[in-house]
């Protein structure tokens, strides 16, 4: 990928424009019971241009990243914006001004070769087969993903940004007493590539021992009781709670779409124990897993404090949503692939740690659940959210009991967050998943353990 900027034409009073060169490198390896089912790599390079003119946007992209092609793209994007005039005259928004100049590239350890990864997969697989009796299947998946973007805009932005994250998951499958499959998964994710996260056998071994223990418990799992229940969500769940429950409803495009949060700024939406922030690039003095110094519109990125001590404070936004709502820009517009246009997206969304201890929080539950692992989740304009529970336990009289079968938990975010009565001092970040919203997106999410009341799916 070239590092030479091809700046779009200087803005006229009537238009704004941006260009992005974007390279996305990925590798994915999947081993199923010693069989290397996937051993794949990809490099997707492209350039895009976007123009705002006459109240409309035009966008164009190509796999050809030559300077000449990028200039042609700007023309095509402008023609596209003008073609939208067929819909009639539209009021032009006064987009916020802002520009960023700088280079941010993560320098991690030396990457692992495909061969080193294949050997490591085989080693972990063999160790699991030897150590854990009764496994029907073991799946080990490793993935890394590296985005490198060169963004320029008509306001003077000229920035190089990179995002790199890696993921390792191990899934154990066994059978329950009726012969039905039961599975549990351990996730390890972090910044950088597969050489930067520690998925050595030594590092994985204690986690896999614990995972096998959960698998044995889940083979005798019981169905959760459907209905309202008091729960402790472990630190690995707080991030998805932040992301789904109030993250999405605080994206300004969804606010414009009618999300109820639009009427709640300055109002109490959560317990005063809850503070929630979408971090741009730095958390607690360290660079976040998904560092966004300037977004894909070229706007300098800043933290968005969504909830402060239980009160809804602000939204994440793009140039357009900032202008429409008359709120400060946060630099939250991001595009996943070279051919994607920027949309309002979360970056590193977290509920901040509190003072409680996880053990004490569990001890305080008379009849409820301890929820430890999740799958995918979904938000809604009403703030009613859900996410899957792939590992959890009953809690009776403060003691952890039987495992529960896979289920889903849900609730109104406002009721759930207002019901929070304890927040632990832990902090767990997870950056393994994708967020889906027209395009998929790499995000990270974090938080402590949280005690509250939710709806459990079940009998």
């Amino acid at each position: 990928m070239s590092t030479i900027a091809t700046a779009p034409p200087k803005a006229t009073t009537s238009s704004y424009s941006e260009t992005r060169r974007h390279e996305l490198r990925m590798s994915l390896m999947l081993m199923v019971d010693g069989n290397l089912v996937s051993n794949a790599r990809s490099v997707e390079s492209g350039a895009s241009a976007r123009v705002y003119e006459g109240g409309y946007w035009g966008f164009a992209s190509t796999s050809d990243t030559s300077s000449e092609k990028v200039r042609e793209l700007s023309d095509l994007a402008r023609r596209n914006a003008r073609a939208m005039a067929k819909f009639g005259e539209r009021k032009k928004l006064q987009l916020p001004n802002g520009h960023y100049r700088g280079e941010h590239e993560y320098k991690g350890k030396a990457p692992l070769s495909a061969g080193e990864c294949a050997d490591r997969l085989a080693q972990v697989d063999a160790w699991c087969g030897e150590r854990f009796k009764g496994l029907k299947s073991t799946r080990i998946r490793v993935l890394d993903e590296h985005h490198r973007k060169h963004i320029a805009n008509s306001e003077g932005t000229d920035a190089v940004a990179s995002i790199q994250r890696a993921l390792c998951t191990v899934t154990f499958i066994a059978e329950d007493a009726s012969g039905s499959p039961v599975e549990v998964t351990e996730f390890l994710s972090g910044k950088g590539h597969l050489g930067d996260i520690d998925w050595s056998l030594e590092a994985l071994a204690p986690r896999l021992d614990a995972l096998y223990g959960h698998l044995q418990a889940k083979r005798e799992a019981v169905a959760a009781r459907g209905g309202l229940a008091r729960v402790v969500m472990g630190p690995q769940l707080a991030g998805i709670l932040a992301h789904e429950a109030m993250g999405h409803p605080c994206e300004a495009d969804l606010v414009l779409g009618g999300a109820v949060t639009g009427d709640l700024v300055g109002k109490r939406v959560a317990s005063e124990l809850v503070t929630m922030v979408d971090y741009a690039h730095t958390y607690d003095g360290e660079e976040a897993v998904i560092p966004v110094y300037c977004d894909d519109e070229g706007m300098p990125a800043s933290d968005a404090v969504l909830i402060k001590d239980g009160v809804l404070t602000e939204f994440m936004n793009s140039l357009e949503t900032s202008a429409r709502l008359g709120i400060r820009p946060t630099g939250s517009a991001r595009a996943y692939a070279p051919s994607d246009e920027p949309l309002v997206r979360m970056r590193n969304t977290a509920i901040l740690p509190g003072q409680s201890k996880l053990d004490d929080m569990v001890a305080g539950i008379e009849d409820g659940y301890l929820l430890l692992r999740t799958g995918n989740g979904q938000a809604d304009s009403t703030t009613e959210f859900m996410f899957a529970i792939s590992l959890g336990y009953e809690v009776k009289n403060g003691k952890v009991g039987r495992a529960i079968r896979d289920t889903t938990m849900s609730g109104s975010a406002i009721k759930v967050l207002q019901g929070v009565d304890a927040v632990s001092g832990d902090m767990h970040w997870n950056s393994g998943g994708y967020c889906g919203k027209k395009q998929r997106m790499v995000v990270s999410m974090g938080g402590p353990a949280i005690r509250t009341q939710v709806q459990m799916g079940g009998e």
Partner: protein
Amino acid sequence: MSHTIELRTAATRALEQMRKRGFEHAQVTAMATRQDEVNIAHGEPSLLRSTDARRMGLVGIVDGRKAATEVSDLGETSVREGIDALFAAAKSAPRDEANKVSSGQKARIVQGPQESDVALLTDKARELIDFCRRETPKVNLVEAVVAHVLTRSHTVTTGGSELETEVGHHSVGAFGTAREGQATSSFAYTGGNCHDLAGTHASAMFGIDEMARNLEKSIHTRPVGDKFVGDVVLTPEAVSDFLNWFLGQLCDVQLIAGSSLYRDRVGEAVGSKMLTLRSRFDAPGVCAVTSDAFVANPVTILEQGTLRTLTPGLYGSLKTKLPHVPVAAEGWELLAGDTPREKLVSGTQRGALVGRLSMGNPAANGDFAGVIKNSFMIDGGKVGHALSETMISGNVAQMLKDVAAVSRERLDTGTWLLPWVRIGGLHFS
């Protein structure tokens, strides 16, 4: 045509380079996709997006060791570097006798609209906007897209397979909410692919009009109230959620891991006699070739509830000794039943008309629990109030057996052609 020749040249040249590099077996796909897309945001026309993307997929096997790579720069240097890296990745992979490439497959598939007409896309976007303003003014069309997509590909293998495709389609999708005062509905979305965009009003496509009308009826909601065991009438979109789980059970990873519930069930009744599931690999937006370079011929998966086949790819088949059944990435239909759609509801004593399920992936054993969205209470055979904070739970494998009625009517979204389905025995909470 020149673009087609260009892809063929690129693919055959790369295959030759791979041979020279030392690969014993190889597969190359050169692909180009062009898309024009008119976007609506918050009920207003917003963006015209044009994309032109190329990529080349390379699969190489040396000494029984396999790797795959994909590059978007089809230039000679980029492809050569890709092949070199691929060779190193393959050489370091474990040897596996099941690693093969397709041989003897020949096809040229040309279907759907080959040219984009931006004026037509614009007209259809305007129809959506005008419909919502006129017929469903409480609806905020948060995001809608009208697009033309043309994907051309040329695949060659060292086994002599040669597959050429030029597949065009239009797509229309809408995502919205409805609002009255400070009350907001859940969001809803629908959409699909078609060949002929001009012939039908955009709002009448893929159930968009019905979705918008139902959004206005679901601004004010109530929870279901108490726990009970009842019926669900699933809309086609909700049906597709469950069929996706079922189809996933028939594929390579589940079969190789031995975790598929259906691994040894071919020839057995695994669903209601009302269920016949078969392919429609010639549907709009669907291409009847597989990623491992086989022609996907028509196939029936479920015939009156009896499982007729599993769907392992070449690798899965060689690994498990199960018959190889090539299937396209998508394109399925559930045959219509004989019950009018309204009778599905009138035959339900207590339950819900379920528009969408918000849930995690069902568990390996089929267990699931999900929040029902865009859904309405059914009591005494009549559709009642819109629901909120209501969950259902059950087991997908059991639900396939418990289907009580299938509608005469079906919704065609291109990749799916599905009826409405009534199923009993779900837990509401």
